[in-house]
């Protein structure tokens, strides 16, 4: 029950509890002897009932009773009446146990097991549930069991929905009731039940309903949770969409053997350098999907066979679903101009994690130019050092602006699914925005501000394809800043939100993005990176985002931010040069996303906090050699076990072994002592430069 303060036990209560323990121990000893000897006599079974009435948490006793029931039911002389009486006995024991503790997992589970046998009347169960839900209307065990009973009885979702309504009217601070409502509605939507054909009709009514709760008592959280669910239902389209890709539609990609350039019609934004003999095609979906393969995505070109393409999900975990999928095309060996056509989802198989089919087949094409190798560049590159320092950048001059903008236009995301952003969704959002502005005009309310911020962002994102700008981003940023002050305990969360919105804003238009694009030194002198560097430094970002609009970036400056994580960065497959200097990265495992960046050559992680904290709090969130996700990978490597230094630095080994770095800056981290650096050199034999020193 809720709101009952804990009291220190009185001496007589303590004495009673000691006596109870003694009795329980005696019972238990006897019980175990019955159990081990498989004795299922009447007395033995009754003893287990006694035990369970005192301690409903005794799982062994429940299991013993299950065995006993199975034993009785397997008797040759058992008839239906006998079965019924055996099972009724079980139900009675469960009821008594629940009276002792109505939140006993074991007891509720045993009841389910008995009912599943199908010999007992299920009508009684609803009556029992009414009793328990009266005692505590939020008891989620009872609600869980209710769902089970409703399903067994084939009670309609509509009836159950009405029941949640009644419970909510009694007391609307009921997470369980609101939750059940969301479960039932989801089921009805999925079934396309009568009256639930479209969310368009149902969701506005639900919004209306939840407003009553939120406005009556904005301090009560249960309503807000339901509102968040409704918002999610409003914003998320059922079927996944392709948000962006690299190369984009209409790109001209110039490839030099061993490298690739955009060549003569120099478009610095689409410049790509590759020394691996291949270049990536990246698909970025608006939600995690599975099933991307050469059968669901067709790549037509003269120099690769579609069936040879291997599509890989890019995600931190080892799961087979991801927002970002990548395949590598081999660079053709001869001088060639060829068009590549990519069609996504023309045959079924791409399915979102929610189980919805990708239903908007789309196609994009780009051109690939191949030129013979230029020997000079490869020689220069050997000794080249990239330094992302202020003096090395210059902003684009006015004379080159036009060509920059022209090439930038190529980046604008072509979305063929604009029509799917149906009107009712944005109407619903607009209504909600108005509603919460009103609430905030009445009172100061943290969660109200957060909700308004979410609504405004969702609204902007939804109307972006039409408006082509984020109208509310200033207001959202203000709300986030406000919340950081109002609610310091959740500072980091608001900071993250702030970062995301800021990034959305920066990437929303070419004008704002161009302000962050710089020319690195003399653009042609670099053979490793493209000539354009996106500088998102000094923005006090705590999180990175807006990847779908940054797939083209090869040189990224994220220095002087407050990044603790670079989750999602794996989507930026073209990155070859990255500065994370002066951030708040705390562990090597935080660098995990970089493992998937095959083109990364220059990395600056200097002046972070790697090694400051002896306990890596992110370890359990990211995969590690101790977790299943990478266990099989590292076992293959014999070197781990053979080298003591590497065993001590398994994290470094695991993170860096797949890197193809030329250049690494790690100075200014606690971990980066000489010993560690020597380990790094061992792990990465190709490394040419470490902390500014050339390696032999």
């Amino acid at each position, binding site marked *: 029950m809720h709101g009952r303060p804990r009291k220190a036990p009185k001496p007589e209560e303590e004495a009673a509890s000691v006596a109870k323990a003694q009795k329980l121990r005696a019972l238990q000893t006897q019980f175990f002897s019955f159990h081990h000897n498989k004795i299922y006599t009447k007395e033995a079974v009754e003893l287990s009932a006694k035990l369970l009435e005192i301690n409903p948490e005794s799982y062994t006793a429940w299991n013993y009773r299950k065995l006993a029931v199975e034993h009785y039911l397997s008797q040759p002389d058992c008839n239906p009446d006998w079965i019924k009486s055996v099972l009724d006995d079980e139900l009675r024991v469960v009821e008594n146990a629940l009276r002792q503790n109505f939140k006993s997992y074991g007891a509720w589970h045993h009841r389910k097991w008995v009912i599943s046998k199908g010999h007992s009347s299920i009508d009684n169960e609803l009556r029992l549930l009414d009793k328990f839900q009266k005692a505590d209307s939020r008891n989620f065990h009872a609600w869980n069991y209710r769902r089970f009973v409703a399903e067994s009885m084939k009670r309609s979702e509509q009836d159950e929905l009405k029941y949640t309504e009644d419970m909510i009217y009694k007391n*609307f601070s009921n997470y369980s009731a609101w939750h059940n409502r969301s479960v039932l509605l989801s089921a009805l939507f999925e079934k396309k039940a009568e009256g639930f054909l479209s969310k368009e009709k149902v969701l506005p009514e639900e919004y209306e309903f939840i407003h009553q709760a939120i406005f*009556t*008592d904005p301090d009560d959280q249960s309503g807000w949770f339901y509102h968040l669910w409704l918002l999610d239902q409003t914003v998320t389209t059922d079927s996944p969409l392709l948000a962006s890709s690299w190369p984009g539609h209409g790109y001209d990609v110039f490839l030099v053997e061993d490298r690739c350039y955009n060549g003569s019609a120099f478009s610095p934004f689409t410049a790509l350098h590759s020394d691996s003999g291949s270049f990536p095609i990246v698909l970025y979906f608006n939600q995690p999907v599975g099933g991307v393969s050469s059968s669901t995505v067709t790549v037509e070109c003269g120099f690769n066979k579609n069936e040879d393409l291997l599509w890989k999900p890019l995600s931190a975990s080892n799961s087979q679903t991801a927002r970002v999928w990548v395949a590598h095309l081999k660079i053709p060996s001869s001088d060639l101009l060829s068009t590549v056509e990519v069609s996504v989802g023309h045959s079924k198989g791409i399915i979102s994690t929610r189980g919805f089919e990708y239903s908007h087949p789309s196609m994009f094409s780009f051109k690939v130019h191949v030129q013979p190798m230029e020997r000079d560049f490869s020689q220069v590159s050997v000794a080249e050092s990239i330094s992302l320092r202020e003096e090395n950048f210059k902003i684009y001059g006015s004379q080159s602006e036009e060509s920059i903008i022209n090439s930038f236009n190529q980046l604008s995301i072509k979305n063929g699914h604009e029509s799917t952003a149906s009107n009712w969704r944005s109407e619903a959002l607009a209504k909600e925005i108005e509603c919460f502005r009103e*609430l905030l005009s*009445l009172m100061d309310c943290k969660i109200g501000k957060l909700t308004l911020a979410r609504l405004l962002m969702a609204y902007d994102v939804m109307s972006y394809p039409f408006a082509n700008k984020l109208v509310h981003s200033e207001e959202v940023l203000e709300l986030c800043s406000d919340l950081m002050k109002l609610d310091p305990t959740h500072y980091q969360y608001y900071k993250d939100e702030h970062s995301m919105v800021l990034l959305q804003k920066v990437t929303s238009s070419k004008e704002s993005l161009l302000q962050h694009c710089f020319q690195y030194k003399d653009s042609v002198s670099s053979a490793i990176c493209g000539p354009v560097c996106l500088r998102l430094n000094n923005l006090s970002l705590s999180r990175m985002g807006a990847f779908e609009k940054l797939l083209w970036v090869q040189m990224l400056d994220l220095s002087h931010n407050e990044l603790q994580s670079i989750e999602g960065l794996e989507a930026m497959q073209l990155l070859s040069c990255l500065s994370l200097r002066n951030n708040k990265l705390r562990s090597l495992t935080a660098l995990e996303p970089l493992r998937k960046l095959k083109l990364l050559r220059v990395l600056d992680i200097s002046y972070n906090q790697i090694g400051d904290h002896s306990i890596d709090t992110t370890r359990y969130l990211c995969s590690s050699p101790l977790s299943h996700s990478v266990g099989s990978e590292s076992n293959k490597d014999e070197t781990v076990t053979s080298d003591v230094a590497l065993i001590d630095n398994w994290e470094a080994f695991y993170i860096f072994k797949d890197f193809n770095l030329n250049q690494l800056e790690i100075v200014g981290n606690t971990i980066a002592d000489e010993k560690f650096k020597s380990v790094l050199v061992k792990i990465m034999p190709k490394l040419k430069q470490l902390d500014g020193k050339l390696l032999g």
Partner: protein
Amino acid sequence: MDDIPPYPPIDPTTFDLIVIGTGLPESIIAAAASTASKSVLHLDPNPFYGSHFSSLPLADLPSFLSSHSTSPSPPRSPSSDDPNEFSLLEFATRPLYSSIDISTFSPNLLDQHSRKFNLDVAGPRVLFCADKSIELLLRTGTNQYMEFKSVDATFVGDNKGNLWSVPDSRAAIFKDKSLGLVEKNKLMRFFKLVQGHLAGEQDVKISEEDLQSPFVDFLNKMGLPPKIKSFILYAIAMADYDQEDTGVCRDLLKTKDGIDQLALYNASIGRFQNASGAFLYPIYGQGELSQAFCRRAAVKGCLYVLRMPVTALLVDKDTGCYKGVRLASGQDIFSQKLILDPTFKVTLPLGSSPPLPLKEKLPFFSLKDDKGKIARGICITKTSLKPDISNFLVVYPPRSLFPEQVTSIRLLQIASNLAVCLPGMFVLYISALCNDDDQGKKLIHAVMNTLLTVPLDSESNAAVQSETAEIGSAVQDETSESSSGGPSDSGEEKPTLLWSALYSQELTLGQVDFICSTPMPDGKLNYNDLIDTTFKIFQEIYPEEEFFPETSLENPEVDGDASPET
């Protein structure tokens, strides 16, 4: 009451206390005094318990009201001076009810079943689940003699006949369909403020300055819209007078008092598991309360004699001190103290001069106190004012029915499940404070016209006459009558009036003086103020005794047996 059988003499003839009248205050005092081991004689000239707080059969109500409406009969020939040492001061009755107006639209039906009705003389009245009457009932164990049911809802009415439910709790605010989101927010925040204040939370304390200011000003300061203000003032805090018109307001509520009222209301909701609203109503009517306390007194040894009028007060010839009373039977009974029902007043025989001390006190005692009047109405209908709900309260805030309405009008509908009327019927109690009878009538009529169809006299008589066969049940009657073509029944869905009683009641206060006199039923909805006054009277006559000491709680009488006290 002329042919009363001869009385057996009362024995003993001397008591600590004589209580005349079995109204609620008298009954509580009798019970309290008996509990304090006083010997008590409790008399009532009526053949029933409860006096002005009683619940009466339909036929008895008009006669009770009119018996208290005449001017005091001139004292019978002064019995001159008795041969003994006492002066006799004759009792006279006060006219307490006026403008009694009984209308019967279905005489056969109601007359036949008169005894099935228990009509409250002092309605509308309810008990708040957490008010002083409930505390007293529980503390004294008197609750064992009674059963209650919940009054399910409170509504605020308007002049179009709409009844708006009063959002009086968190759940009710959430559920309410008439309030906008902003109103819901403001109202709930106000409730939270009050709750926080009452719980002593430091950061939500209401300032002393605010507490002393008028409640209506405080509500304005909180930015509550007029609709909600009206809900809080008149349907929750139960203010009687227009709080926004200081010219006519006689009970301007201070914030402090308003908050106390809200606290009472709030504590009442959900106090008892099976009571859904804030109020309770006793099965068999409000008269049960007086009777229950009389039972309580009897258990403690109080002697009861009903149908026993008293004729005169016995006063010491020399000192002018009270000595006893002369009963209608002619017997003289003596006691230390006397409590009088407000019905009685003592008149001085013309030309005779009472002893000096008495002379000084009497004028004060017999002064008619003018605290205005209360207009009451009782209506009987055969359909509920609101479908699907039978027991509920309706408040018409000042100015809600017509511009000159300066007081709240309250209406209580009670159904047959509380055993106050024939099955399928409903009793409506209406009351409003007023300055004079005409004003009172206007207020009661305003409500009746808004909510009820009042049949024309001739038509209803015709309808009744056409009913030939004896009517078995009210339900049958209902169908036959409506089919016989009440014109109003078809068009609007207003319930048709079957019977009504309208009357004005004097609001005499209790007096603590030469002789203690109990108050008449007041204009409030519950008994809180009456219980306060009763407590004061008890303290006055027994300053050294505790008013129902706590021990009576620990040893409640389970059955009616008088157990010896320790």
